[in-house]
Every structure is written in structure tokens, then in C-alpha cells.
């Protein structure tokens, strides 16, 4: 081991030095790499499948849209039960006493039912007395009554039909829900809901949290992602749309989602599919730290000595002296 005070001249003392042109090497690398990258860009292009809009969702799968919106009112969607940072529903992941998801509370507060359904309908009720009356009826109803309407309407949606883009269900006691949902569907199909979920009272917007949470609650976006092999169980985080490579460098992170205990309901040592995200974040943090600390970890730092790959890399150095001298 060299001393920190040792100069390069002392470190390399007695070792033959040969000419080297750093600038030339870097220039050649820049030019060569540029040529290869330009050829790849011209020949293979890059992926760009257009984004899904809420309007497209409502137009192409109106039953899924209405079912999701109804579930928001019933409090049974993923976002409604998520917990921090969106609400206090208590759906956070934990591992024993470790629950970093709750450490910072509801920093991005979102009331899904109100944000995704009620408030957009209030905005759309201007000049629409039928919708205004339905919203008033919904607000005045007891929680039990609302729950009954949602349950009955959700059951009926299982056999719903679609005519001219409108969702029709069998006759029943659904309270104001059919009027509310058909109005919300109309607003969504026209593209209005894309704007209403984004605006949030300001003109310039770059935050799509509400829109993406709402779409994530439905089955349309995940269905398209499943067809494109983008979901978590399909190694999705390292895939891309089309035939393009994705974030292939995330292969190890993605791999953990495919193997026990992170695919198991029962799990091991408290880690299971229910807290897979937290478990994998902790595991990858530990592995990344271990990679950084390889020089300090006995065993890991010794593997290069045991595996003779270095003898291929430095084969000239390890060549018998007589052969090396003959080449010199």
C-alpha cells in the first residue's frame, strides 16, 4: 500500500513508461462515440408513444372510468386507501418499527373523492340545474345512504352497457349517482376533466399528481401498460414501449419484484408482497452502500485476487520476464 504522501514518480519508480497521448485518446473517443451515436439515432430513432389522456380513457373504456369514479366516492380505490403523503387512510408500508412513509405526514394532501369527482362536478354544474340538484342530494344524504347507493351502482356497473359513449345500467335505487356519473363522463370525454384536475386554481401548471393518481386508480392505464410489458411483475421498470431498451441498469432493482419474499403473501422476516416497495428500497440502499464500500469489506475486496480476470487485463505485465524483454 502506498503512502498518501507518495508521489506518482515514487509510486511508479523503476516501472518502464511508454508514450501516451491523453488528448488524442479523448478526441478519438469523442469522435468515434459521436459517429456511433449519430448512426444509432438515425437508424433506430427513439420511443415516443403518445400519453394517455383522461378523455381517451373515458371515450375508450367508459365503464371502467365510471366504475373508478364511483369507487372514489365509495373510498375503495388505491389512492383513497393510500395513506401518506396523500391522506391519512393508514395504507402505508412498514417493516417492523420502520415506516419512513409516515415520517413526513400528508405533504401532498389529496382527497380523492372530492378532488377527482365532486369538485369537477361542481365546476361543471354551472348552468346545469339537474347536476346541481343531484350534487345537493348527494351532499345532503347520510353516509350510510351514500354507501348503499355506491354499492348498488357498483354492482349494476358490472352489467352496464355502452350506447353512443354513454353508460347505461339496469333500473335501481342509485340516488343521484347516474346523473352525477354521466355528467362526469361527459366532461371527461370532452377533455374537460384533463384540465380540471390540472388547473388547481392557477394558470401555469406542471404538476400532474391528481391526474395520474386518478388514472392509476382505474384499469385502463394499467391495461395498456400490461400490453406494453411495463408493469412491475413484467420487469416493467427496465422496459420501454416498443422494441427499445429501457432503464436496463435497473435490472437488479426490478429483479427483486419477481422473487420471494417480495412476491409472497406470507413473506419472510416480515418482508412480503405487502411491503415489497419498502423492503426493496432498503435492500438496494444496503447493496449500493456495500458496492461503494467494497474497498473496506474483506472478502468482497479479495475476489479480484482470486478470480484471474486481472491476468487477462495485464497479461503483458504477468508475462515471463524473458518474453517481455524479447518484445521490448
Amino acid at each position, binding site marked *: 500500500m502506498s503512502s498518501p504522501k507518495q508521489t506518482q514518480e515514487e509510486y511508479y519508480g523503476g516501472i*518502464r513508461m511508454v508514450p501516451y497521448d491523453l488528448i488524442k485518446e479523448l478526441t478519438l473517443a469523442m469522435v468515434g462515440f459521436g459517429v456511433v451515436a449519430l448512426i444509432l*439515432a438515425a437508424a433506430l430513432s427513439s420511443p415516443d408513444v403518445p400519453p394517455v389522456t383522461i378523455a381517451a380513457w373515458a371515450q375508450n373504456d367508459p365503464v371502467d372510468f365510471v366504475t373508478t369514479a364511483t369507487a372514489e366516492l365509495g373510498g375503495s380505490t388505491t389512492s383513497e386507501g393510500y395513506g401518506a403523503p396523500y391522506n391519512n387512510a393508514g395504507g402505508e408500508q412498514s417493516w417492523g418499527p420502520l415506516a419512513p412513509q409516515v415520517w413526513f405526514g400528508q405533504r401532498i394532501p389529496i382527497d380523492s373523492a372530492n378532488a377527482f369527482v365532486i369538485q369537477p362536478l361542481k365546476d361543471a354544474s354551472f348552468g346545469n340545474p339537474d347536476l346541481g340538484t343531484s350534487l345537493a342530494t348527494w351532499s345532503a344524504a347520510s353516509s350510510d345512504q351514500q354507501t348503499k347507493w355506491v354499492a348498488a351502482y357498483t354492482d349494476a356497473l358490472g352489467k352496464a352497457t355502452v350506447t353512443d359513449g354513454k353508460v347505461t345500467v339496469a333500473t335501481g335505487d342509485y340516488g343521484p349517482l347516474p346523473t352525477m356519473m354521466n355528467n362526469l363522463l361527459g366532461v371527461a370525454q370532452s377533455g374537460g376533466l384533463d384540465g380540471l384536475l390540472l388547473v388547481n386554481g392557477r394558470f401555469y401548471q406542471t404538476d400532474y399528481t391528481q391526474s395520474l393518481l386518478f388514472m392509476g386508480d382505474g384499469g385502463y392505464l394499467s391495461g395498456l401498460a400490461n400490453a406494453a410489458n411495463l408493469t412491475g411483475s413484467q420487469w416493467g421498470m427496465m422496459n420501454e414501449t416498443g422494441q427499445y431498451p429501457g432503464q436496463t441498469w435497473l435490472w437488479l432493482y426490478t429483479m427483486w419484484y419477481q422473487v420471494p419474499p417480495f412476491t409472497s403473501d406470507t413473506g419472510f422476516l416480515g418482508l412480503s408482497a405487502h411491503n415489497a416497495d419498502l423492503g426493496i428500497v432498503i435492500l438496494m440502499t444496503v447493496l449500493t452502500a456495500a458496492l461503494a464500500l467494497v474497498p473496506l469489506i474483506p472478502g468482497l475486496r479479495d475476489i479480484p485476487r482470486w478470480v484471474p480476470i486481472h491476468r487477462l487485463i495485464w497479461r503483458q505485465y504477468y508475462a515471463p520476464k524473458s518474453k517481455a524483454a524479447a518484445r521490448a
Partner: protein
Amino acid sequence: MFEQTLVTRPAPPETPAAPTTSDPSWTYRTRRWIDRVLPMDHLLPHRQPYYVGSWVYVFGVITIAALAWVVLSGVILSFMGPQWWHDSSLGHFVNSLHFWSVQLFFLFMVLHLWGQYFMAGWRDGRAATWMIGVVIFAVSILTAFTGYLSQQNFAAQFIAVNAKDAMNAGGIGAFFNVLNFGQMYGLHVMLLPIGVTFLVVAHIVMVRSRGVVKPIGPEGGSAK
């Protein structure tokens, strides 16, 4: 015939007007420190040990070249705005250049990492160089991740919806909201590239300061 034995250069003679080593000037002390830690013939060497002859040594410099092309194409994309490449064929080509440069950047960075691992490149006082290299790898992954989130297309949408759960479960989702395009785009085009570039410069300075590590074990013999 081109080989030569390293000869220690004589120190340049100090002029009578030059400050002494006890000069309290911060500027003078900083310059002396830089001269000692990274003299120009270490920063831009024109000779190197004869054993530096493998292609493994080229992976690092190709990674630097890739980073330069990633930054160049990224600067054009950010100057023209996030919508440009969706609407323009030239913009799409520049995005493709950015895309493939990133793919190759990671390919050569991983090859460089594994090469350095099997050469045990952290030996002889180079542990910090290795550690900064791993940090560069991690920050590069974060930078690429924010890039995928900033694409404004279907892949970006689903990556955001899918990835939020890991971010939230780890606690950082409260501050690093992958569903917020503005936040991800700002991090991707400004803070994270500056971080990667700064770390790469530090990594290169450390490599050049100490030089390449010696092979494992004695010359012409076993590695034990």
C-alpha cells in the same frame, strides 16, 4: 524504442520575487496545494506505465465521451423546450441522439465499473476514487430516471404511477414527487446533470492525481 524510464523532474527554480512557503496568502497556498496534488504533467500525462495496454482502460474515457454527447444533446433539447421533440422531426432526431448516448453511457460506465472491480482499482490509496465512482453511478441512475419521467409520453406516465410507490414507501416521495412533471424536469435538466458533471470532474482529478493503479502482485509472477 519509444520506452523510457521515468525520471523525476527537477523543481523549477524560484524567482527572487516569489513568495516563500510561509506566505500567508490564501491564493498562494491554494496554488501550492494544487501544484503538489495535481501538477500539469499528472493532469495531462504524455507517458504512462507500459502495462496500461488493455481495452479495459478505454471504457472510462468512452464513458466521458458519452457524457459529453449526453450533455450536448440534452442542452439542445432543454433550450428548445420539452414539447419540441414531440412535434419536430429534427427534435425527435436530437432526442434519439440523447436516448442512445444515455444507453451507451451506462453500458460503458458499467463495463468501466466491472473492469475496475476485477483490477481492484481501489488499491494503494484509491478507495475514495472508487467510492466517488459508485456515487456517480447512483446519481446517474437518478438523473436518467428523472429523464424517463420527463419524456411527456405514455412510458413516462406509467413509470411515474409505478415508481411513486417505492419513493413513497422509502419516505422520499414526500419531497421527490415523481408525479410532478415540473419538479422532475427541473431536476433532470439542471441540478442532477451539474451533480454528475461535478462528481465526474472530481473522479478524473483523483485518477490523474494518483495515476493508474499497479497490477496485482509482482511483475512476471503470480497475483498472490
